[in-house]
């Protein structure tokens, strides 16, 4: 029987397809066949002795109702369904065309709702769903280590950290020797395919070509990466294992993006030599367009180099931070420096737990053999993670904002749905009579339901189509809002079939949701009652309650959205007016990196001193200072702080933030010195080391005592020093706008052993205009191969750190306005409809002596009650949901009464305002006319 069903299923599909395609052929064939039948029958009857006319009549009688049988054939072929759908669609289209205003409002609000959802989903997909463009990305596993808060044997890290679930911290950084050892072990007892190493080097590479200097991002990869990931360059060759040796020539594979940007997609790029941090490197290949490296799904680094290139292109004296073998520039042999990532393919049939168990043993052995272990040491734990989305940093950073935005857009869409349900409900009540007529004429209930659903789905499809267009053109709005002038956002918003599917799904869902109410009402249509109650009775039937409930729901939803808009807008306002502790006006920032190949330490420090001195003489420059970390850029350094005249403090208290600065830092940034002095010309590279501390630090370590003249050390390592405190500066924000100024000390950069990259802060004289051409010329005068990186103003820099808050304020404000508009339409629609239905009743009231202001008050009172009920509900919802966004707010609590009261007032005003028109109309009803009115 199984085979049977299957066979006949395909035969049915084929038959339906044939019939639906060749519709006229089917109809003609059917007619001809039946005519033939009746004529043959008539001929037979005539031969039996009947007259020709009588024979024809008998044949027709015996055959039966021709049209009925034809319909039977159509139904048998599955064509009935198609015909009905066509008729429904035609009818629905006619209905929509007839009420153009309604259709415009419906499609418009749906388009906004669905468009907003599509826009957010595009970002969600890029951040949370997209996988690396490599072969079989699901097989990839990324390794991390989890460390306890105290007692980790690994002290020198570079890379991103995160809190581990269940305490401690987690990072995906390993040392190169650890990678080599794990790879070796895995080769003899395989639990994975060959292990791959990579490290994204960020946007920190100076790229020189034909005398032109620019900035590029890079990724270091192990020689086996391309082959293991199954990535083939679109041009030239990949990086091979043989490239990954110190002796090999330096070669690079460039991204599709860089190929377009710098080489105009010319095939001559192969074999071309470019300077990377002033080291000549030969381009041997161009990556395929979709490939973004092993670390990120969002955007591709510009240049891919083998790890063997690190000592030359990215020299790390003392492994970048402190300590380590100072004679070498290589991090590849440094067992103590954990800075690169390990990824690999799981072997078929090996579970993640088996992989973890085997690798954990090897890693443990390695750490015990190479690092200092004592009795307090807490060994790090190995973690095996999904590697198909790279390090998924964007996911970590944006997951929460995305969930909140998704929630809000879902609310907006729900609001649009509620609005439509309401409008359709009012219409379907008006169409009660039509439904009754159709039922009376023999339409089945299912048929009527299908008709109503078809209309809703047609509306929602139109809205979905417009929403898709809106989402497509608006897909770059969020990345645009998130990016700043000097650094593009790493968000991939490629449009693909999944977005189309999502939008289509959402459209159908909304159509069903807002179609439900009118459909339900249509089923309740009683043929008799419907036909009889054609004239609006003086008493209102219960059917109005559905509409009221929907309006209350709408107001509640709007309240939540408006409160959200209020909270995020006030957060932005609070952040913008936060006390900085320094003057950000007329301040230009840029970074200059001294390439180690040309300026080996301490020449780099001298270079920065020369540049500082030269830039200070540029016309229009009031003063210039350097900082190791730019202010308010989400980056900071910290270090030990041990006052020499106190016992060593324990735990966190022993830390202080630190920022190495230029001599004129405090005057340039207008940070007042409270005690002692700032830096002067007597503080030089060779004089004793001095530092200025801020008030918070002074309070924490010295209490009421005057710290000036005392000294401290920043650790006990060979590269750590003792500093004398010469002054106390007022508190100023460092890395974050949100936090109070942290305890910070400022040493002079000129007294440091090495400073590769520094941020220059140039205070421009008032009215001096653009000083940057002069500054560029001054820098080029000293070294023409030094690009100015990330040129921006200090204010732009501050803006960039609150770009997420700005995005939220902008989007939620948009949603809030949208919500108010939709609520307004909803209330107006309901009240206008209610007044129209009650014309008769109001006429009676007025005839009995009600004054027009009493009628006005009655209608306004009704809408106010709806609003108050909705506001109460919305208030509860807003307070409940507000807790979820507490961490995203600044300077106010989620239940901030001013925001709540303000939102409630606005909504109440909107509710009353929307009802004003219908209320006026009601109050002007002429009793005589109203009573005559049917």
């Amino acid at each position: 029987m199984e085979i049977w069903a299957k066979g006949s299923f395909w035969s049915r599909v084929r038959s339906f397809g044939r019939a639906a395609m060749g519709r006229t052929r089917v109809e003609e064939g059917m007619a001809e066949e039946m005519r033939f039948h009746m004529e043959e029958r008539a001929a037979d009857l005539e031969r039996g002795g009947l007259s020709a006319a009588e024979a024809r009549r008998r044949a027709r009688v015996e055959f039966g109702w021709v049209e009925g049988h034809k319909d039977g054939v159509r139904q048998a072929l599955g064509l009935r369904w198609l015909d009905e759908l066509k008729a429904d669609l035609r009818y629905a289209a006619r209905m929509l065309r007839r009420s153009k205003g309604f259709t415009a409002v419906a499609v418009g609000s749906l388009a906004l709702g669905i468009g907003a959802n599509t826009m957010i989903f595009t970002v969600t997909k890029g951040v949370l769903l997209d996988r690396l463009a490599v072969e079989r990305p699901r097989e990839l596993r990324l390794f991390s280590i989890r460390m306890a808060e105290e007692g980790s044997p690994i002290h020198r890290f570079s890379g991103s950290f995160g809190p581990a679930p269940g305490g401690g911290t987690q990072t995906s950084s390993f040392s190169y020797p650890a990678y080599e050892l794990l790879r070796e072990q895995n080769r003899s007892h395989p639990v994975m395919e060959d292990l791959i190493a990579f490290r994204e080097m960020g946007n920190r590479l100076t790229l020189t070509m034909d005398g032109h200097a620019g900035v590029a991002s890079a990724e270091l990869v192990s020689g086996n990466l391309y082959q293991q990931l199954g990535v083939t360059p679109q041009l030239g060759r990949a990086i091979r294992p043989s490239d990954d040796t110190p002796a090999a020539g330096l070669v690079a594979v460039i991204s599709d993006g860089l190929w377009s940007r710098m080489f105009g997609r010319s095939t001559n790029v192969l074999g071309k030599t470019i300077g990377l941090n002033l080291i000549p490197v030969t381009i041997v290949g161009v990556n395929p367009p979709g490939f973004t490296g092993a670390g990120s799904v969002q955007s591709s680094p510009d240049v891919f180099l083998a790890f063997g290139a690190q000592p030359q292109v990215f020299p790390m004296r003392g492994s970048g931070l402190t300590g380590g073998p100072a004679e070498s520039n290589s991090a590849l042999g440094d067992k103590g420096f954990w800075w690169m990532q390990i990824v690999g393919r799981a072997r078929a049939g090996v579970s993640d737990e088996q992989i973890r168990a085997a690798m954990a043993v090897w890693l443990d052995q390695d750490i015990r053999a190479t690092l200092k272990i004592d009795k307090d040491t807490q060994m790090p734990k190995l973690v095996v993670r999904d590697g198909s989305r790279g390090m998924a940093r964007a996911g970590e950073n944006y997951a929460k904002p995305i969930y909140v935005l998704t929630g809000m857009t879902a609310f907006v869409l729900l609001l649009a749905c509620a609005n439509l349900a309401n409008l359709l409900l009012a219409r379907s009540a008006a169409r009660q009579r039509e439904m009754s007529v159709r039922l009376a004429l023999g339409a089945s209930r299912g048929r009527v339901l299908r008709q109503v659903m078809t209309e809703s789905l047609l509306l929602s499809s139109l809205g979905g189509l417009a929403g898709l267009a809106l989402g497509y053109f608006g897909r770059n709005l969020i990345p645009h809002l998130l990016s700043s002038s000097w650094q593009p956002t790493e968000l991939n918003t490629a449009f693909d079939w999944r977005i189309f599917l999502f939008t289509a799904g959402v459209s159908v869902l909304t159509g069903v949701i807002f179609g439900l109410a009118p459909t339900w009402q249509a089923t309740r249509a009683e043929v008799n009652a419907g036909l009889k109650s054609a004239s609006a009775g003086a008493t209102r039937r219960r059917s109005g309650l559905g509409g009221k409930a929907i309006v209350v729901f709408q107001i509640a939803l709007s309240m939540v959205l408006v409160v959200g808009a209020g909270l995020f807008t006030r957060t932005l306002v609070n952040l913008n007016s936060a006390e900085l502790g320094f003057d950000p006006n007329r301040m230009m920032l840029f970074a200059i990196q001294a390439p180690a190949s040309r300026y080996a330490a301490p020449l780099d420090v001298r270079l920065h001193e020369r540049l500082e001195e030269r830039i200070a003489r540029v016309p229009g420059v009031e003063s210039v200072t350097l900082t190791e970390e730019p202010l308010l850029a989400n980056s900071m350094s910290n270090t030990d702080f041990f006052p020499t005249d106190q016992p060593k403090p324990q735990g966190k208290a022993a830390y202080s933030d630190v920022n190495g600065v230029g001599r004129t830092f405090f005057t340039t940034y207008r940070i007042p010195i409270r005690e002692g002095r700032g830096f002067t010309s007597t503080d030089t590279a060779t004089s004793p080391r001095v530092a200025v501390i801020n008030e918070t630090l002074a309070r924490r370590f010295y209490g009421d005592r005057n710290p000036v003249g005392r000294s401290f050390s920043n650790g006990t390592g060979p590269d750590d020093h003792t500093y004398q405190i010469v002054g106390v500066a007022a508190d100023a924000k460092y890395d974050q706008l949100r936090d109070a100024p942290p305890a910070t000390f400022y040493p002079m950069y000129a007294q440091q052993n090495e400073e590769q990259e520094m941020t220059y802060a140039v205070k421009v004289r008032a009215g001096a205009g653009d000083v940057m051409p002069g500054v560029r010329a001054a820098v080029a005068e000293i070294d023409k191969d030094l690009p100015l990186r990330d040129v921006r103003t200090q204010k732009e820099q501050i803006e960039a750190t609150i770009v997420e808050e700005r995005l939220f304020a902008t989007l939620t404000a948009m949603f809030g306005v949208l919500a108010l508009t939709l609520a307004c339409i909803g209330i107006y629609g309901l009240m206008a409809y209610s007044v129209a239905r009650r014309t008769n009743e109001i006429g009676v009231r007025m005839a009995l002596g009600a004054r027009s202001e009493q009628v006005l008050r009655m209608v306004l009172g009704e809408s106010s009650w709806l609003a108050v009920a909705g506001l109460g509900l919305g208030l509860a919802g807003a307070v409940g949901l507000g807790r979820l966004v507490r961490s995203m707010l600044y300077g106010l609590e989620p239940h901030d009464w001013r925001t709540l009261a303000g939102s409630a007032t606005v909504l109440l005003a909107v509710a009353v305002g929307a009802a004003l028109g219908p209320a006026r109309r009601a109050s002007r009803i002429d009793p005589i006319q109203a009573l005559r009115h049917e």
Partner: protein
Amino acid sequence: MELMQGTLDMLILKAVSLGPLHGYGVLLRIQQISGEQLEIQQGSLYPALARLEHQGWIASEWGESENKRRAKFYSLTATGRKQLQVEATKWTRMAELVAGILKTTREEL
């Protein structure tokens, strides 16, 4: 005798199993083999034919009738033949069962 519900399809399959027929021919064949005993609403043959063809049990082809007119001829397909067998077996068993029940006497209980 009026046709029992659901038996028309089987009769059509049987009729065309004896050779390709046009619609009117199917009617004649059924009447002929039933000894003119069955009354069939003639027009209802066509939805039934369409249904069977839709299922893939019979196939149709335009051809020429005995008196040289264009007509649509139906013939049994391979799956149609199997279906006819299944239906026939089912029907025979049913008929025997019902007959057995009806013949039951008090003594046999």
